[in-house]
């Protein structure tokens, strides 16, 4: 068993991990990235639609600013987000797009003059400004007031990760591929790295580091139907949970994407609707305006997904032998647009459905898509409970998404958080008191513990079948912890998942090779995934309100009075079968945007007692500063700039500032 020392151990080679590693490296620290697969194959690759940043280059984005992006994001998250973090995020997102532009991402660009677009089912001609010609273009996405989503045709994530991974190669950052972190090494509230299994040789190695950064992505595979890659199993969150010290935030907040192709669940991007695509039912009727007259197909994802399921429940779904579904109609966008701006969509329809989206409708149904919850961190990206453990990207609950994230805000988060958290990791490593001082004996204990867990699976007498347990878990999660949730179902789900967890301690494998062994991998991951599934189900059961993507039929209203707080889950004891839940209140009195109606979805909610007071305060401040610029107003409402690393502060120029 080996020990490898480094300054920064980044677990995860997706956008967030790569960008953090580059930041740390540029600060002069040695960084190693671990990844299950070659970095460029991380699931960031699959992001199609785009990345939000308020550049305001296109005419439909004119007037966009950090302020509008801020409000959209907070509303989208149904006031669950940490508003200071949202501010940090929206101010850095334009910088991130511009940095990526310099690094070679071939962002689609604005072409001056007239062009035809589809808005609300109608052909409309819009005229792009001369001054914007050749600047990064934006498209429309759900839940946004302005066109703000920067994109590279519909291969945005692909182009982004290609550029960033290449920059990591340029910076000579080693990526240890086919390596999986199995446990975090920690002692007295301080994280020191991880025990890592080589997926080819089966060997265990301890990576000991000053700073450990988790960027392991989402946990979609807790569900049966998901848009996520097969490696999105939430192991990063699970090993943080298993420390018993770090906490996971808001794990019950799970996003379902309206347009997974049916039945495979492969995603077709929100850009389809952003660019003018429509949802239709079995009769070919465009039904979204009936439910959501303001935002129609472009309400936030949680709302659209629910409306779709509601519509199917009314018997309006198209029937197929795999069940009911609805239709996504992009035929009105025309062949040229589809072949150029929605290439991946075209390919996916062609290869997986045998459907030509230029002529035919695409069968879709909502599928699990995104994990808003994750390892709880403060604004610096560090766990408040476990010093030296950082997290960023989908695996983290930095908390800029609250209970629902907007399309395009996720890849933006990965890079922005990578930039910001990377700087704070740099600061952390700069401080001499953070040098590594862990006794090797402790490291060896961890190695031996993990070796023992593996040996138990390989040589034990376990009889449970990991695949069967996993399938059962996925069925429970999809059926009972899905888009619509009920107390009774959730109770059952929690019970059943607990039983599965107990059974999972008795998993046996048939193929007993210690090296490359897919069955062994399924076995130990399933054990961890069950714990994670329980944090989702148990958190959902406890939260007796509806907020964002978390929708309780038995508590359909958002309840700020009781639930304006973040769920924190920890797993105190290995023998437990349930996480321990605690809550972290959100402080209305410090919110820049006090809770209110989102602008779509349900209108009624139960107010927080402080909301009215804060609203008055905000009004008064705005009135008082009526003659000041927006920056002064913002500063007065909720100062946040001090939270950003110095090199990432500062305003963002737009073409309107130039004229």
């Amino acid at each position, binding site marked *: 068993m080996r020990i490898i020392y480094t300054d920064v151990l980044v677990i995860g080679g997706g956008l967030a991990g790569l960008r953090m590693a580059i930041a740390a*490296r540029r600060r002069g620290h040695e960084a190693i990235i671990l990844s299950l697969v070659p970095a460029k194959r991380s699931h960031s690759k699959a992001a199609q639609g785009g990345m939000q940043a308020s550049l305001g280059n296109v005419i439909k984005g004119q007037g966009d600013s950090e302020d509008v992006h801020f409000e959209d994001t907070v509303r989208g998250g149904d006031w669950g987000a940490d508003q200071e973090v949202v501010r940090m995020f929206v101010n850095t997102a334009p910088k991130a797009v*511009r*940095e990526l532009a*310099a690094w070679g991402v071939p962002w689609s660009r604005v072409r001056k003059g007239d062009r035809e677009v589809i808005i609300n089912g109608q052909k409309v001609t819009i005229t792009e400004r001369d001054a914007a010609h050749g600047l990064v273009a934006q498209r429309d996405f759900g839940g946004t007031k302005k066109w703000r989503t920067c994109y590279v045709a519909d291969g945005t994530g692909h182009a982004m990760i290609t550029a960033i991974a290449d*920059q990591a190669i*340029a*910076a000579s950052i080693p990526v240890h591929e086919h390596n999986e972190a199995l446990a975090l090494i920690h002692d007295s509230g301080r994280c020191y790295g991880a025990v890592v299994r080589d997926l080819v040789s089966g060997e265990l190695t301890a990576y000991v580091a000053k700073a450990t950064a988790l960027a392991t992505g989402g946990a979609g595979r807790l569900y049966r139907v998901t848009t996520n890659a097969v490696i999105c199993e939430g192991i990063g969150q699970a090993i943080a949970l298993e420390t018993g010290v770090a906490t996971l935030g808001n794990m019950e907040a799970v996003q379902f994407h309206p347009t997974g192709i049916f039945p495979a669940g492969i995603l077709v991007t929100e850009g389809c609707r952003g660019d003018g695509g429509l949802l239709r039912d079995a009769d070919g009727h465009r039904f979204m305006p009936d439910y959501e007259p303001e935002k129609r197909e472009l309400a936030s994802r949680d709302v659209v997904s629910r409306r779709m399921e509601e519509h199917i429940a009314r018997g309006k779904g198209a029937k197929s032998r795999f069940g009911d579904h609805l239709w996504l109609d992009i035929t009105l966008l025309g062949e040229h647009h589809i072949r150029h701006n929605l290439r991946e969509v075209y390919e996916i329809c062609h290869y997986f459905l045998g459907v030509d989206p230029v002529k035919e409708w695409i069968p879709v149904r909502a599928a699990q898509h995104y994990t808003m919850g994750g390892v709880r961190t403060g604004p610096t990206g560090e766990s408040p409970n476990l010093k030296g453990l950082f997290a960023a990207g989908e695996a983290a609950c930095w908390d800029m998404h609250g209970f629902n994230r907007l399309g395009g805000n996720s890849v933006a988060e990965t890079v922005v958080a990578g930039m910001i958290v990377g700087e704070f990791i740099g600061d952390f490593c700069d401080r001499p008191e953070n040098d590594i001082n862990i006794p090797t004996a402790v490291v060896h204990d961890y190695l031996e513990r993990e070796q023992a867990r593996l040996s138990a699976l390989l040589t034990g007498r376990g009889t449970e079948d990991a695949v069967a347990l996993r399938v059962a878990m996925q069925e429970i999660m999809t059926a009972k912890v899905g888009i619509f949730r009920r107390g009774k179902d959730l109770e059952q789900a929690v019970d059943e998942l607990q039983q599965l967890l107990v059974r999972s301690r008795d998993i046996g494998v048939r193929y007993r090779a210690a090296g490359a062994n897919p069955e062994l991998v399924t076995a130990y991951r399933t054990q961890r995934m069950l714990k994670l599934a329980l944090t989702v189900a148990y958190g959902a059961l406890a939260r007796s309100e509806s907020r964002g993507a978390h929708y309780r039929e038995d508590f359909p209203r958002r309840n700020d009075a009781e639930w304006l707080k973040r769920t924190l889950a920890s797993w105190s004891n290995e023998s437990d079968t349930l996480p321990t839940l605690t809550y972290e209140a959100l402080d209305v009195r410090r919110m820049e945007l006090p809770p209110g109606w989102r602008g779509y979805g349900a209108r009624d909610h139960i107010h927080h007692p402080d909301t009215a007071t804060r609203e008055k305060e905000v009004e008064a401040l705005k009135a008082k500063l009526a003659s000041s610029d927006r920056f002064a107003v913002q500063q007065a409402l909720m100062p946040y700039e001090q939270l950003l690393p110095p090199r*990432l502060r*500062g305003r963002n120029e737009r073409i309107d500032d130039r004229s």
Partner: protein
Amino acid sequence: MKGSDQLADVAAATRRAPRDRLPALLDVVQSISGLALVMFLGMHLLLDAAILIGPSAADAVARAFEGQYLFGTAHPWIVSLAALALLTLIVVHAVLALRKLPHSTREYVAFRHHLRGINHGDTRLWWWQVVTGMALFFLIAPHLYIVITQPETIGASASAHRVVAERAWVLYAILLPVVLLHAAAGTYRMVVKWGWPKLSRVRLRPWVWGIAGAYCVLGLAALVAYTILGLRLTE
């Protein structure tokens, strides 16, 4: 606000060792020599076809190349010289092409394996180009040997005699399709390789094979004509 520092970009600027031009040169020469040979072959076969007009036409062509109309008398050594130059060109072309062939058993086996597995037309065609190229070593040698050593025996009746009495028709009947296949494959590859003229392979193929086929017919016809003439001479 200052953004990212420049980590990456010294490499290109610092690496300024004198450039090795040879690879580019060899690659271009390989193609140019091939092109020259193809053009020569085209001319050669066209002129051979003079026999289809009649023995005197064939003789006139032969004399023309011996400089008869330039110097007043025929100098067959001109043909020898030209053939020597051609031989040099062929050797250059062949040596350059050798670089591309399998160099060891491992490479040979790997390629054969690949060829069988991939089942890909253009890959197969390349293999045939290699095979015909090899064959041409042996087929062209005797042909050129005669031209260089007995340039004066080129002409309607002497050639016809060779074809029939000396049984050269066997050589020519094999040489013709082999050289045409090689030339066609080479031309096709050259167009694809350099991307000029801008044609898709689907559009290019009929051209290449059409022209090669036409030449084959023409060449065979000339051979038949010589054979008939040769048979008549022996009678």
